[in-house]
C-alpha cells in the first residue's frame, strides 16, 4: 500500500493539510503525519517515496496517486530550497514523525544527552563554550558563559535549587522556528534542556510557551510524557503564557512563571544568579537549546564552530516571511546576505512588485532597504548598521508599503505591549505615535497645554515638520538608552531606520 506523508504542523493545518490527509486515507493510502519541511508556499506538501507534490488540495489526490499531477516538484531533498541549506537544528524537518521516539532515536536522537551524561557538567560547558554558541533569542549572549555562571552560583536556604527555563514565547512577527521545533521535533528541545540541566545541576525545567501556540503546547506535553523516563531525574513542565509580548523578555518571563504581572525586572541581579523564585536559572531560547544536542555529539563542538563567520558561529534558522514568494524555514551558516535570502532563495515578493524594505529581527528590528542587502547575516555586521538579527525573522515588503505607517505601528505596538514598568517605554511609545501622527498632519495651532505660562520648556510657536522629526529622533534616543529592556530600547530601531532610509515617506 502506498504511504503518503503529510505534515501536521500548525501552518500546514492552516493551509488545509487535514482535509488532504483525510482524502488520501479515503482513497486507500496509508497516511503518516510528519513534521514540515519548511517550504511553506508548497503547504500542504504531500510526500510519496521521497517525491513531493504541493500545494495539494483534496481535488489533487487522484492525480497525485496516479502520478499525473502537475503539482509534482520532484524529489524533495533535491529541491534547491532544501539542498542549499545546512540543516542541523532542522535536520529532521519533514523526515520524522514528531512524537515517534523510534524515529527520533533512529536519526541520532539522545546521542548528545548520553554522551553529555558520561561527562562532568564542567566538561559539557567547556564544549558549549568551544562551539561558540550564542543565544538565539536575540541578544546573542554566549550560552556557555551563562551556563557557567549558573553552575557556579552558590545555593542557599533561600535559593535551594537551580532551574532550566526555555523561552518559547516566540512573539516576534515573522518568526516561527520555535513553533516548528516544538511541533515538529519536540524531543530535540527536551534533549537540549536535559543536557543544560546536567551541565548546571538542575532537576526541574519549565518551557514557557505563548498561548497563541496551542498545537505546540499539546505536542510538547505529549513528548514530555513519552520521554519522561529517558530524561529522568530531570523533570520538565510546560507553562502557557497569556498573550503578553513582553513576556518574551527573560526577566518578565520569570515573573510570569512565578504567577506575577509580566513586568521586567531590573538587572542586576542576573537571572543566572537570581532567577526563577530567586534561584540560579538558565533562561535560553528554543533555538539555543536545540543546537545543544548537536554540539554534544562527538566532535560536534568543532563542527559547529567551523560554521559561520567572525563571532557568529554555527547555523541560524532564518525565517522568510511576509511578502516573499518562497517563504519558509531556511537554516544556513551565518554570513549569508539578504540579497541571497530575499531575491535568490525567496524569489522576490509574492505580490510580484519590487521589494522596498525588509524587516529583520521582528517588531523591534530595523527596516533595511535594498541598498543594504549586501550585509552578511551576523550579529556584529548588523549591529554596526544599527540593525539586529534578533530571532532570525526576515519580513519582506513590496513598494506599496508606507514606511511612515510602519514606524507608527512600531510605536503603537510598543504602547500596546509595554509592561509599564519604565517611563521611556510606557510614555515614550504613546508620545511617539502622537508625534508621527503630527508629522503626517502638521498642527495648525499651538497646543493649548504647551501655551500655558507655566510650560516654560514648551515651544511657543507651532513646530515645523523638521522640528517634529528632530523631536522624534530625540525621543528615540531617550527610549533607546533609558528603557529597562529591549521592548522600549529597540522600538527606535524600526522607527529610526524608516526615517533614515525613506525620508520621503515622512514628508
Amino acid at each position, binding site marked *: 500500500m502506498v504511504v503518503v506523508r503529510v505534515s501536521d504542523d*500548525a*501552518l500546514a*493545518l*492552516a*493551509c488545509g493539510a487535514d482535509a488532504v490527509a483525510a482524502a488520501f486515507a479515503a482513497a486507500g493510502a496509508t497516511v503518516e503525519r510528519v513534521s514540515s519541511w519548511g517550504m*511553506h*508556499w508548497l*503547504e500542504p506538501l504531500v510526500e510519496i517515496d521521497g517525491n513531493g507534490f504541493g500545494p495539494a488540495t483534496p481535488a489533487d489526490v487522484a492525480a497525485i496517486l496516479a502520478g499525473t499531477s502537475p503539482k509534482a516538484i520532484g524529489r524533495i531533498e533535491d529541491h534547491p530550497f532544501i539542498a542549499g541549506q545546512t540543516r542541523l537544528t532542522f535536520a529532521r524537518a519533514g523526515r520524522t514523525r514528531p512524537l515517534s521516539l523510534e524515529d527520533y532515536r533512529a536519526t541520532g536522537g539522545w546521542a548528545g544527552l548520553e554522551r553529555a551524561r558520561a561527562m562532568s557538567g564542567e566538561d559539557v560547558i567547556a564544549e558549549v563554550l568551544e562551539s561558540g554558541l550564542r543565544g538565539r533569542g536575540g541578544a546573542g549572549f554566549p550560552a556557555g558563559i551563562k551556563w557557567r555562571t549558573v553552575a557556579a552560583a552558590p545555593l542557599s536556604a533561600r535559593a535551594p535549587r537551580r532551574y532550566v527555563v526555555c523561552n518559547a514565547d*516566540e*512573539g*516576534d*512577527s*515573522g*518568526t*516561527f522556528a520555535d*513553533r516548528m521545533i516544538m511541533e515538529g521535533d519536540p524531543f530535540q528541545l527536551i534533549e537540549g534542556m536535559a543536557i543544560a540541566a546536567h551541565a548546571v545541576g538542575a532537576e526541574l525545567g519549565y518551557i514557557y510557551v505563548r*498561548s*497563541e*501556540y*496551542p*498545537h505546540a503546547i499539546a505536542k510538547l506535553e505529549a513528548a514530555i510524557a513519552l520521554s519522561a523516563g529517558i530524561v529522568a531525574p530531570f523533570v520538565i513542565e510546560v*507553562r*502557557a*503564557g*497569556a*498573550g*503578553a*509580548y513582553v513576556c518574551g523578555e527573560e526577566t518578565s518571563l520569570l515573573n*510570569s*512563571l*512565578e*504567577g*506575577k*504581572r*509580566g*513586568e521586567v525586572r531590573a538587572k542586576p541581579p542576573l537571572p543566572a544568579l537570581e532567577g526563577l*523564585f530567586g534561584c540560579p536559572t538558565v533562561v535560553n531560547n528554543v533555538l539555543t537549546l536545540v543546537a545543544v544536542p548537536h554540539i554534544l555529539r562527538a566532535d560536534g563542538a568543532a563542527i559547529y564552530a567551523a560554521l559561520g563567520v567572525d563571532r557568529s558561529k554555527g547555523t541560524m534558522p532564518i*525565517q*522568510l*516571511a*511576509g*511578502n*516573499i514568494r518562497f*517563504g*519558509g524555514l531556511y537554516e544556513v551558516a551565518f554570513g549569508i546576505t539578504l540579497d541571497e535570502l530575499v531575491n535568490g532563495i525567496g524569489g522576490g515578493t*509574492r505580490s510580484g512588485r519590487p521589494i522596498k524594505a525588509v*524587516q529583520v529581527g521582528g*517588531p523591534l528590528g530595523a527596516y533595511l532597504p535594498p541598498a543594504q542587502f549586501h550585509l552578511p547575516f551576523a550579529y556584529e555586521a548588523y549591529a554596526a548598521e544599527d540593525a539586529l538579527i534578533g530571532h532570525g*525573522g526576515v*519580513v*519582506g*515588503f*513590496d513598494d506599496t*508599503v508606507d514606511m511612515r505607517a*510602519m514606524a507608527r*505601528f512600531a510605536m503603537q*505596538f510598543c504602547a*500596546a*505591549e509595554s*509592561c509599564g514598568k519604565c517611563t521611556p517605554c510606557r510614555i515614550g511609545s504613546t508620545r511617539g505615535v502622537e508625534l508621527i501622527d503630527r508629522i503626517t498632519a502638521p498642527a495648525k495651532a499651538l497646543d493649548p497645554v504647551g501655551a500655558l505660562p507655566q510650560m516654560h520648556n514648551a515651544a511657543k510657536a507651532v513646530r515645523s515638520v523638521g522640528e517634529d522629526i528632530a523631536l522624534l529622533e530625540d525621543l528615540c534616543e531617550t527610549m533607546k538608552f533609558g528603557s529597562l529592556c529591549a521592548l522600549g530600547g529597540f522600538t527606535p530601531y524600526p522607527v529610526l531606520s524608516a526615517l533614515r532610509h525613506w525620508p520621503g515617506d515622512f514628508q
Partner: protein
Amino acid sequence: MGGGAAGESPQAIIADAPLAAIIAAHVGREGPLLPLLHDVQAAFGCVSAEAERAIAAALNLSRAEVHGVVSFYHDFTEVADPRPCVQLCRAEACQANGVEALVPVAEQAAGTRVRVQTVYCLGLCSVGPAARVGDDLYARLDAAALVALVENA
C-alpha cells in the same frame, strides 16, 4: 489593602463547586496563578471579581495582587463575552500581505454578532494573512475567505 478574604474562610467564599475544583487542582503547585487563571478563564469565559476573591484567599494573596495579574494579560477578561471570536493577525508580516485592507471587511461581516479581535502573530508569517478561531487556524486569507470565516464563526 486588597485582602478581600480577611476573616472569611476560603470555603465560605467558594460557593461555586467547579471553581473550587479548579482552585484545588492548582494549590500547592509552584507558581500556580497563571495556569489557574487559564483554567478559570476557559471554564467561565472570564475571571470575575468573585473568582479573584476566591483565588486570592486560596493562594494567600491580596485581591489586588490577583486583579493586577488578571488585568495585565490580554488572555484574561473580567467579564465574559459569549460571542464567537475571530482572532485576526495584524502584525508586520500579515500587514506585508495586506491584512489592513481586510480589517474593515471583517468588521462589516462581523457586525455585533461576532467579535473580531486583533492579535499580534500566530506564527504563520509566511502564509499570511492568518486568523484563528478557537484552536483552528486559517492562512492565505483573502476578503472572500475571511468573510466566510466570520460568517461561519
